[in-house]
Protein backbone atom coordinates (compact mmCIF):
# COMPACT_ATOMS: atom_id res chain seq x y z
CA UNK A 1 0.00 0.00 0.00
CA UNK A 2 2.82 2.36 0.89
CA UNK A 3 4.49 1.66 -2.41
CA UNK A 4 1.28 2.51 -4.24
CA UNK A 5 0.89 5.81 -2.40
CA UNK A 6 4.49 6.63 -3.12
CA UNK A 7 4.04 5.93 -6.81
CA UNK A 8 1.05 8.26 -6.89
CA UNK A 9 3.06 11.12 -5.52
CA UNK A 10 6.21 10.54 -7.50
CA UNK A 11 4.81 11.80 -10.80
CA UNK A 12 3.16 15.13 -11.43
CA UNK A 13 2.96 14.60 -15.17
CA UNK A 14 0.10 16.66 -16.63
CA UNK A 15 -1.74 13.44 -17.51
CA UNK A 16 -1.27 9.85 -16.54
CA UNK A 17 -3.44 6.77 -16.48
CA UNK A 18 -3.11 3.05 -15.99
CA UNK A 19 -5.34 0.07 -16.67
CA UNK A 20 -8.19 2.36 -17.73
CA UNK A 21 -11.22 0.33 -18.70
CA UNK A 22 -14.70 1.69 -19.24
CA UNK A 23 -17.90 -0.10 -20.15
CA UNK A 24 -21.34 1.21 -21.04
CA UNK A 25 -24.17 -1.27 -20.56
CA UNK A 26 -21.78 -4.20 -20.80
CA UNK A 27 -20.05 -2.84 -23.94
CA UNK A 28 -16.36 -2.13 -23.54
CA UNK A 29 -15.52 1.38 -24.78
CA UNK A 30 -11.98 1.57 -23.36
CA UNK A 31 -9.73 -1.32 -22.64
CA UNK A 32 -6.58 -1.23 -20.47
CA UNK A 33 -5.30 2.17 -21.54
CA UNK A 34 -1.92 3.30 -20.22
CA UNK A 35 -0.64 6.80 -20.89
CA UNK A 36 2.01 9.11 -19.52
CA UNK A 37 2.01 12.60 -20.95
CA UNK A 38 5.01 14.70 -19.99
CA UNK A 39 5.08 18.50 -19.82
CA UNK A 40 5.18 20.30 -23.16
CA UNK A 41 3.90 17.35 -25.15
CA UNK A 42 1.42 18.10 -27.92
CA UNK A 43 -0.42 14.81 -28.11
CA UNK A 44 -2.76 14.09 -30.99
CA UNK A 45 -5.38 11.43 -30.37
CA UNK A 46 -6.79 9.78 -33.48
CA UNK A 47 -9.21 6.98 -34.11
CA UNK A 48 -12.40 6.34 -36.00
CA UNK A 49 -15.74 7.55 -34.71
CA UNK A 50 -16.67 5.45 -31.71
CA UNK A 51 -13.10 4.32 -31.04
CA UNK A 52 -13.28 5.74 -27.52
CA UNK A 53 -11.50 9.10 -27.89
CA UNK A 54 -14.11 11.21 -26.10
CA UNK A 55 -14.53 8.64 -23.36
CA UNK A 56 -10.77 8.51 -22.81
CA UNK A 57 -10.62 12.31 -22.52
CA UNK A 58 -13.56 12.41 -20.11
CA UNK A 59 -12.16 9.68 -17.90
CA UNK A 60 -8.69 11.31 -17.91
CA UNK A 61 -10.23 14.57 -16.70
CA UNK A 62 -12.37 12.87 -14.06
CA UNK A 63 -15.67 13.70 -15.78
CA UNK A 64 -16.49 10.01 -15.84
CA UNK A 65 -15.59 7.18 -13.55
CA UNK A 66 -13.65 4.27 -15.04
CA UNK A 67 -14.73 0.71 -14.32
CA UNK A 68 -11.11 -0.25 -13.80
CA UNK A 69 -7.84 1.61 -13.52
CA UNK A 70 -6.98 5.13 -12.48
CA UNK A 71 -6.21 8.49 -14.00
CA UNK A 72 -4.22 11.43 -12.67
CA UNK A 73 -3.93 15.09 -13.59
CA UNK A 74 -0.75 16.81 -12.35
CA UNK A 75 -0.37 13.92 -9.91
CA UNK A 76 -3.86 14.22 -8.39
CA UNK A 77 -6.45 11.47 -8.84
CA UNK A 78 -8.77 12.70 -11.60
CA UNK A 79 -11.87 11.83 -9.60
CA UNK A 80 -10.92 14.24 -6.81
CA UNK A 81 -9.18 17.20 -8.38
CA UNK A 82 -8.59 20.22 -6.17
CA UNK A 83 -9.50 23.71 -7.40
CA UNK A 84 -5.79 24.49 -7.69
CA UNK A 85 -5.39 21.81 -10.35
CA UNK A 86 -8.73 22.52 -12.04
CA UNK A 87 -7.61 26.11 -12.58
CA UNK A 88 -4.63 24.87 -14.56
CA UNK A 89 -6.83 23.02 -17.08
CA UNK A 90 -8.47 24.43 -20.20
CA UNK A 91 -10.99 22.04 -21.71
CA UNK A 92 -13.16 22.28 -24.81
CA UNK A 93 -15.71 19.46 -25.10
CA UNK A 94 -16.83 18.20 -28.47
CA UNK A 95 -20.13 20.04 -28.29
CA UNK A 96 -19.80 22.92 -25.87
CA UNK A 97 -23.28 23.71 -24.57
CA UNK A 98 -22.83 25.26 -21.11
CA UNK A 99 -24.37 28.64 -20.21
CA UNK A 100 -26.66 28.63 -23.28
CA UNK A 101 -28.89 31.30 -21.67
CA UNK A 102 -26.04 33.75 -21.01
CA UNK A 103 -24.65 36.49 -23.23
CA UNK A 104 -21.11 35.80 -24.43
CA UNK A 105 -19.62 38.84 -22.69
CA UNK A 106 -21.35 38.05 -19.39
CA UNK A 107 -20.33 34.42 -19.50
CA UNK A 108 -16.67 35.27 -20.14
CA UNK A 109 -16.70 37.80 -17.32
CA UNK A 110 -18.38 35.33 -14.97
CA UNK A 111 -15.95 32.52 -15.78
CA UNK A 112 -12.97 34.88 -15.70
CA UNK A 113 -13.62 35.83 -12.10
CA UNK A 114 -13.05 32.22 -11.08
CA UNK A 115 -9.61 31.98 -12.66
CA UNK A 116 -6.66 33.87 -11.15
CA UNK A 117 -4.69 33.74 -14.40
CA UNK A 118 -7.57 34.90 -16.64
CA UNK A 119 -6.11 36.72 -19.65
CA UNK A 120 -8.66 39.42 -20.50
CA UNK A 121 -6.40 40.97 -23.16
CA UNK A 122 -6.39 37.66 -24.99
CA UNK A 123 -10.18 37.46 -24.72
CA UNK A 124 -10.64 40.92 -26.20
CA UNK A 125 -8.20 40.33 -29.04
CA UNK A 126 -9.69 36.95 -29.93
CA UNK A 127 -13.30 38.18 -29.84
CA UNK A 128 -12.33 40.93 -32.26
CA UNK A 129 -10.24 38.71 -34.50
CA UNK A 130 -12.97 36.11 -34.76
CA UNK A 131 -15.69 38.78 -35.04
CA UNK A 132 -17.84 37.47 -32.22
CA UNK A 133 -20.64 39.76 -30.99
CA UNK A 134 -20.42 39.78 -27.19
CA UNK A 135 -24.07 40.67 -26.61
CA UNK A 136 -25.42 37.55 -28.31
CA UNK A 137 -26.66 34.67 -26.16
CA UNK A 138 -24.60 31.48 -26.37
CA UNK A 139 -27.65 29.41 -27.22
CA UNK A 140 -28.18 31.45 -30.42
CA UNK A 141 -24.72 30.85 -31.86
CA UNK A 142 -23.87 28.61 -34.80
CA UNK A 143 -21.82 25.50 -33.95
CA UNK A 144 -18.68 27.17 -35.34
CA UNK A 145 -19.20 30.32 -33.25
CA UNK A 146 -19.94 28.28 -30.15
CA UNK A 147 -16.74 26.30 -30.67
CA UNK A 148 -14.72 29.50 -31.04
CA UNK A 149 -16.16 30.97 -27.84
CA UNK A 150 -15.36 27.74 -26.02
CA UNK A 151 -11.79 27.87 -27.36
CA UNK A 152 -11.35 31.48 -26.24
CA UNK A 153 -12.64 30.56 -22.82
CA UNK A 154 -10.29 27.55 -22.51
CA UNK A 155 -7.23 29.47 -23.70
CA UNK A 156 -7.97 32.55 -21.58
CA UNK A 157 -7.40 30.64 -18.35
CA UNK A 158 -3.71 30.43 -19.38
CA UNK A 159 -3.84 26.69 -18.90
CA UNK A 160 -0.85 24.47 -18.21
CA UNK A 161 -2.89 21.64 -19.68
CA UNK A 162 -5.15 22.23 -22.66
CA UNK A 163 -7.55 19.47 -23.69
CA UNK A 164 -9.48 19.82 -26.93
CA UNK A 165 -12.00 17.22 -28.09
CA UNK A 166 -12.33 17.54 -31.88
CA UNK A 167 -11.63 21.28 -31.71
CA UNK A 168 -11.70 21.76 -35.47
CA UNK A 169 -14.92 19.90 -36.23
CA UNK A 170 -17.01 23.07 -36.75
CA UNK A 171 -14.24 25.45 -37.86
CA UNK A 172 -13.55 26.58 -41.41
CA UNK A 173 -9.99 26.12 -42.76
CA UNK A 174 -8.90 29.66 -41.87
CA UNK A 175 -10.13 29.44 -38.28
CA UNK A 176 -8.61 25.97 -38.06
CA UNK A 177 -5.19 27.24 -39.09
CA UNK A 178 -5.55 30.11 -36.57
CA UNK A 179 -6.21 27.57 -33.86
CA UNK A 180 -3.26 25.38 -34.85
CA UNK A 181 -0.98 28.42 -34.73
CA UNK A 182 -2.29 29.33 -31.30
CA UNK A 183 -1.61 25.77 -30.10
CA UNK A 184 1.92 25.91 -31.46
CA UNK A 185 2.60 29.34 -29.92
CA UNK A 186 1.40 28.13 -26.51
CA UNK A 187 3.61 25.08 -26.69
CA UNK A 188 6.63 27.12 -27.82
CA UNK A 189 6.29 30.05 -25.43
CA UNK A 190 4.81 28.57 -22.28
CA UNK A 191 5.48 24.84 -22.53
CA UNK A 192 1.73 24.20 -22.39
CA UNK A 193 0.83 20.53 -22.53
CA UNK A 194 -1.85 19.88 -25.12
CA UNK A 195 -4.06 16.88 -25.79
CA UNK A 196 -6.36 17.08 -28.78
CA UNK A 197 -8.45 14.54 -30.59
CA UNK A 198 -9.09 14.85 -34.28
CA UNK A 199 -9.66 12.87 -37.40
CA UNK A 200 -7.97 15.49 -39.57
CA UNK A 201 -4.71 13.66 -39.95
CA UNK A 202 -2.77 16.52 -41.58
CA UNK A 203 -3.52 18.84 -38.61
CA UNK A 204 -2.16 16.24 -36.28
CA UNK A 205 0.94 15.70 -38.42
CA UNK A 206 1.70 19.38 -38.26
CA UNK A 207 1.33 20.30 -34.64
CA UNK A 208 1.64 17.11 -32.61
CA UNK A 209 4.87 15.79 -31.15
CA UNK A 210 3.26 12.48 -30.31
CA UNK A 211 0.40 10.47 -31.71
CA UNK A 212 -1.83 8.02 -29.88
CA UNK A 213 -4.07 5.94 -32.05
CA UNK A 214 -7.15 4.35 -30.51
CA UNK A 215 -8.69 1.45 -32.36
CA UNK A 216 -11.29 -0.98 -31.08
CA UNK A 217 -11.13 0.75 -27.70
CA UNK A 218 -7.43 0.17 -27.13
CA UNK A 219 -4.21 2.04 -27.88
CA UNK A 220 -2.68 0.43 -30.96
CA UNK A 221 -0.02 3.05 -31.71
CA UNK A 222 1.74 5.42 -29.32
CA UNK A 223 4.71 7.04 -31.05
CA UNK A 224 6.78 10.19 -31.48
CA UNK A 225 5.63 11.71 -34.76
CA UNK A 226 9.13 12.64 -35.92
CA UNK A 227 10.13 8.99 -35.63
CA UNK A 228 7.01 7.48 -37.15
CA UNK A 229 8.58 6.84 -40.57
CA UNK A 230 11.42 5.06 -38.82
CA UNK A 231 9.39 3.08 -36.32
CA UNK A 232 6.36 2.02 -38.39
CA UNK A 233 6.09 0.46 -41.83
CA UNK A 234 3.83 -1.60 -44.03
CA UNK A 235 4.91 -5.09 -44.93
CA UNK A 236 3.44 -6.90 -47.92
CA UNK A 237 3.70 -10.68 -47.94
CA UNK A 238 2.83 -12.37 -51.28
CA UNK A 239 0.08 -14.98 -51.53
CA UNK A 240 1.12 -18.46 -50.45
CA UNK A 241 4.31 -17.35 -48.74
CA UNK A 242 5.38 -19.77 -46.05
CA UNK A 243 7.38 -17.06 -44.31
CA UNK A 244 4.49 -15.58 -42.35
CA UNK A 245 3.34 -17.54 -39.30
CA UNK A 246 -0.37 -17.57 -38.47
CA UNK A 247 0.37 -16.11 -35.05
CA UNK A 248 1.34 -12.51 -34.39
CA UNK A 249 4.90 -11.60 -35.27
CA UNK A 250 6.98 -9.25 -33.07
CA UNK A 251 5.83 -5.65 -33.46
CA UNK A 252 2.70 -6.55 -35.41
CA UNK A 253 0.09 -3.78 -35.17
CA UNK A 254 -2.44 -5.02 -37.71
CA UNK A 255 -2.86 -7.69 -40.38
CA UNK A 256 -5.17 -7.70 -43.39
CA UNK A 257 -5.80 -10.43 -45.94
CA UNK A 258 -6.11 -8.99 -49.44
CA UNK A 259 -8.41 -10.34 -52.14
CA UNK A 260 -5.46 -11.67 -54.15
CA UNK A 261 -4.31 -13.77 -51.21
CA UNK A 262 -1.45 -11.50 -50.21
CA UNK A 263 -1.27 -10.14 -46.69
CA UNK A 264 -0.39 -6.63 -45.54
CA UNK A 265 0.80 -5.92 -42.04
CA UNK A 266 1.66 -2.80 -40.15
CA UNK A 267 4.72 -3.47 -38.02
CA UNK A 268 6.39 -1.33 -35.37
CA UNK A 269 9.83 -1.26 -33.81
CA UNK A 270 11.62 0.98 -31.34
CA UNK A 271 14.10 3.55 -32.59
CA UNK A 272 17.40 1.88 -33.46
CA UNK A 273 15.88 -1.63 -33.33
CA UNK A 274 15.91 -3.99 -36.34
CA UNK A 275 12.81 -5.10 -38.22
CA UNK A 276 11.74 -8.72 -37.65
CA UNK A 277 13.52 -11.31 -39.83
CA UNK A 278 10.57 -11.80 -42.17
CA UNK A 279 11.25 -8.47 -43.93
CA UNK A 280 14.35 -10.05 -45.50
CA UNK A 281 12.35 -12.89 -47.09
CA UNK A 282 12.37 -12.70 -50.91
CA UNK A 283 9.04 -11.49 -52.28
CA UNK A 284 8.08 -9.43 -49.24
CA UNK A 285 8.14 -5.67 -49.51
CA UNK A 286 8.57 -3.05 -46.81
CA UNK A 287 7.07 0.40 -47.46
CA UNK A 288 7.29 3.64 -45.54
CA UNK A 289 3.96 4.87 -44.20
CA UNK A 290 2.74 8.34 -43.51
CA UNK A 291 0.23 8.87 -40.75
CA UNK A 292 -2.78 8.78 -43.05
CA UNK A 293 -1.67 5.47 -44.60
CA UNK A 294 -1.08 4.10 -41.13
CA UNK A 295 -4.51 5.21 -39.97
CA UNK A 296 -6.28 3.65 -42.92
CA UNK A 297 -4.19 0.50 -42.92
CA UNK A 298 -4.89 -0.18 -39.26
CA UNK A 299 -8.46 1.08 -39.00
CA UNK A 300 -10.11 -0.42 -42.06
Amino acid at each position, binding site marked *: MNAVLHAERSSDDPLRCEWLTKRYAGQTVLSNVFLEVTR*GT*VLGLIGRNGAGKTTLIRVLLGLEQPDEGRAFVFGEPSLGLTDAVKQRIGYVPQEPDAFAWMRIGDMLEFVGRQYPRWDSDFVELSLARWQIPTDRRLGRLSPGERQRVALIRALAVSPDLLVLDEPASALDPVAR*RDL*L*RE*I*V*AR*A*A*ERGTTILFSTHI*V*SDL*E*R*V*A*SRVVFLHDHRVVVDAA*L*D*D*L*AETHARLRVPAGSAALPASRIPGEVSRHHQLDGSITLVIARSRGEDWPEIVATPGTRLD*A*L*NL*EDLFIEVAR
Partner: protein
Amino acid sequence: MNADRFTILPGATEPIYRQIGSQLRRLIASGQLPPGEELPSVRDVAVQHAINPMTVSRAYCQLEGEGLLTRLRGKGMVVADGAHAVLSPEQRLARLQAQLADVARQARELNLPARLVLQRLKLLLEGPE
Protein backbone atom coordinates in the same frame (compact mmCIF):
# COMPACT_ATOMS: atom_id res chain seq x y z
CA MET B 1 16.06 34.33 -43.94
CA ASN B 2 12.28 34.36 -43.59
CA ALA B 3 10.27 31.57 -41.99
CA ASP B 4 8.00 31.41 -45.03
CA ARG B 5 10.88 30.23 -47.19
CA PHE B 6 10.40 26.68 -45.93
CA THR B 7 7.94 24.42 -47.68
CA ILE B 8 6.23 21.99 -45.31
CA LEU B 9 4.28 19.01 -46.62
CA PRO B 10 2.46 17.26 -43.77
CA GLY B 11 1.35 14.24 -45.80
CA ALA B 12 4.82 13.25 -47.02
CA THR B 13 6.59 10.13 -45.77
CA GLU B 14 9.63 12.32 -45.09
CA PRO B 15 9.15 13.60 -41.52
CA ILE B 16 8.81 17.37 -41.20
CA TYR B 17 12.10 17.78 -39.32
CA ARG B 18 13.91 16.13 -42.23
CA GLN B 19 12.07 18.30 -44.75
CA ILE B 20 13.40 21.38 -42.95
CA GLY B 21 16.90 19.91 -42.65
CA SER B 22 17.22 18.95 -46.29
CA GLN B 23 15.88 22.30 -47.50
CA LEU B 24 18.44 24.11 -45.35
CA ARG B 25 21.26 21.85 -46.54
CA ARG B 26 20.40 22.60 -50.15
CA LEU B 27 20.08 26.36 -49.59
CA ILE B 28 23.43 26.42 -47.78
CA ALA B 29 25.19 24.18 -50.33
CA SER B 30 24.08 26.41 -53.18
CA GLY B 31 25.26 29.53 -51.41
CA GLN B 32 21.75 30.99 -51.24
CA LEU B 33 22.16 31.14 -47.48
CA PRO B 34 25.62 32.66 -46.91
CA PRO B 35 27.66 32.28 -43.70
CA GLY B 36 26.36 34.55 -40.95
CA GLU B 37 22.82 34.53 -42.37
CA GLU B 38 20.37 34.46 -39.48
CA LEU B 39 17.77 31.73 -39.41
CA PRO B 40 14.22 32.47 -38.26
CA SER B 41 13.61 31.53 -34.62
CA VAL B 42 12.12 28.15 -33.76
CA ARG B 43 8.99 29.91 -32.57
CA ASP B 44 8.60 31.89 -35.81
CA VAL B 45 8.96 28.83 -38.04
CA ALA B 46 6.60 26.84 -35.81
CA VAL B 47 3.88 29.49 -35.73
CA GLN B 48 4.22 30.45 -39.41
CA HIS B 49 3.73 26.88 -40.59
CA ALA B 50 1.65 25.66 -37.62
CA ILE B 51 4.13 22.90 -36.86
CA ASN B 52 5.44 21.57 -33.59
CA PRO B 53 8.32 23.67 -32.16
CA MET B 54 10.27 20.59 -31.11
CA THR B 55 10.26 19.43 -34.71
CA VAL B 56 11.89 22.69 -35.81
CA SER B 57 14.51 22.66 -33.07
CA ARG B 58 15.31 19.05 -33.85
CA ALA B 59 16.13 20.06 -37.44
CA TYR B 60 18.24 23.00 -36.29
CA CYS B 61 20.14 20.87 -33.76
CA GLN B 62 20.89 18.24 -36.37
CA LEU B 63 22.43 20.82 -38.72
CA GLU B 64 24.30 22.36 -35.82
CA GLY B 65 25.77 18.91 -35.18
CA GLU B 66 26.83 18.70 -38.82
CA GLY B 67 28.63 22.04 -38.49
CA LEU B 68 26.36 23.84 -40.93
CA LEU B 69 24.73 26.07 -38.29
CA THR B 70 26.12 27.82 -35.21
CA ARG B 71 24.23 29.15 -32.24
CA LEU B 72 25.11 32.79 -31.62
CA ARG B 73 24.39 34.29 -28.24
CA GLY B 74 21.55 36.79 -28.51
CA LYS B 75 21.08 36.12 -32.20
CA GLY B 76 19.92 32.55 -32.40
CA MET B 77 21.02 30.28 -35.21
CA VAL B 78 23.20 31.50 -38.07
CA VAL B 79 24.79 29.72 -41.02
CA ALA B 80 28.26 28.60 -39.88
CA ASP B 81 31.48 29.99 -41.36
CA GLY B 82 32.76 26.62 -42.50
CA ALA B 83 29.49 25.96 -44.31
CA HIS B 84 30.23 28.50 -47.03
CA ALA B 85 32.43 26.17 -49.09
CA VAL B 86 30.00 26.24 -51.99
CA LEU B 87 29.79 22.82 -53.53
CA SER B 88 30.52 22.15 -57.19
CA PRO B 89 27.57 21.33 -59.45
CA GLU B 90 28.58 17.64 -59.35
CA GLN B 91 28.63 17.63 -55.56
CA ARG B 92 25.25 19.32 -55.47
CA LEU B 93 23.88 16.87 -58.01
CA ALA B 94 25.11 14.02 -55.82
CA ARG B 95 22.70 15.25 -53.14
CA LEU B 96 19.79 14.68 -55.49
CA GLN B 97 20.96 11.20 -56.47
CA ALA B 98 18.67 9.31 -54.09
CA GLN B 99 15.56 11.29 -55.09
CA LEU B 100 16.35 11.01 -58.79
CA ALA B 101 16.94 7.27 -58.47
CA ASP B 102 13.56 7.02 -56.78
CA VAL B 103 11.84 8.96 -59.57
CA ALA B 104 13.59 6.75 -62.15
CA ARG B 105 12.42 3.57 -60.41
CA GLN B 106 8.84 4.78 -60.18
CA ALA B 107 8.88 5.96 -63.81
CA ARG B 108 9.98 2.45 -64.86
CA GLU B 109 7.24 0.89 -62.72
CA LEU B 110 4.73 3.15 -64.48
CA ASN B 111 6.27 2.23 -67.81
CA LEU B 112 6.78 5.89 -68.72
CA PRO B 113 9.16 6.80 -71.55
CA ALA B 114 12.16 8.86 -70.39
CA ARG B 115 11.25 11.61 -72.82
CA LEU B 116 7.94 12.34 -71.06
CA VAL B 117 9.46 12.28 -67.59
CA LEU B 118 12.29 14.61 -68.63
CA GLN B 119 9.83 16.97 -70.27
CA ARG B 120 7.79 17.21 -67.09
CA LEU B 121 10.90 17.64 -64.96
CA LYS B 122 12.10 20.42 -67.22
CA LEU B 123 8.76 22.21 -66.83
CA LEU B 124 8.99 21.89 -63.06
CA LEU B 125 12.55 23.20 -63.00
CA GLU B 126 11.77 26.22 -65.14
CA GLY B 127 8.31 26.97 -63.78
CA PRO B 128 7.44 29.08 -60.75
CA GLU B 129 8.19 27.51 -57.37
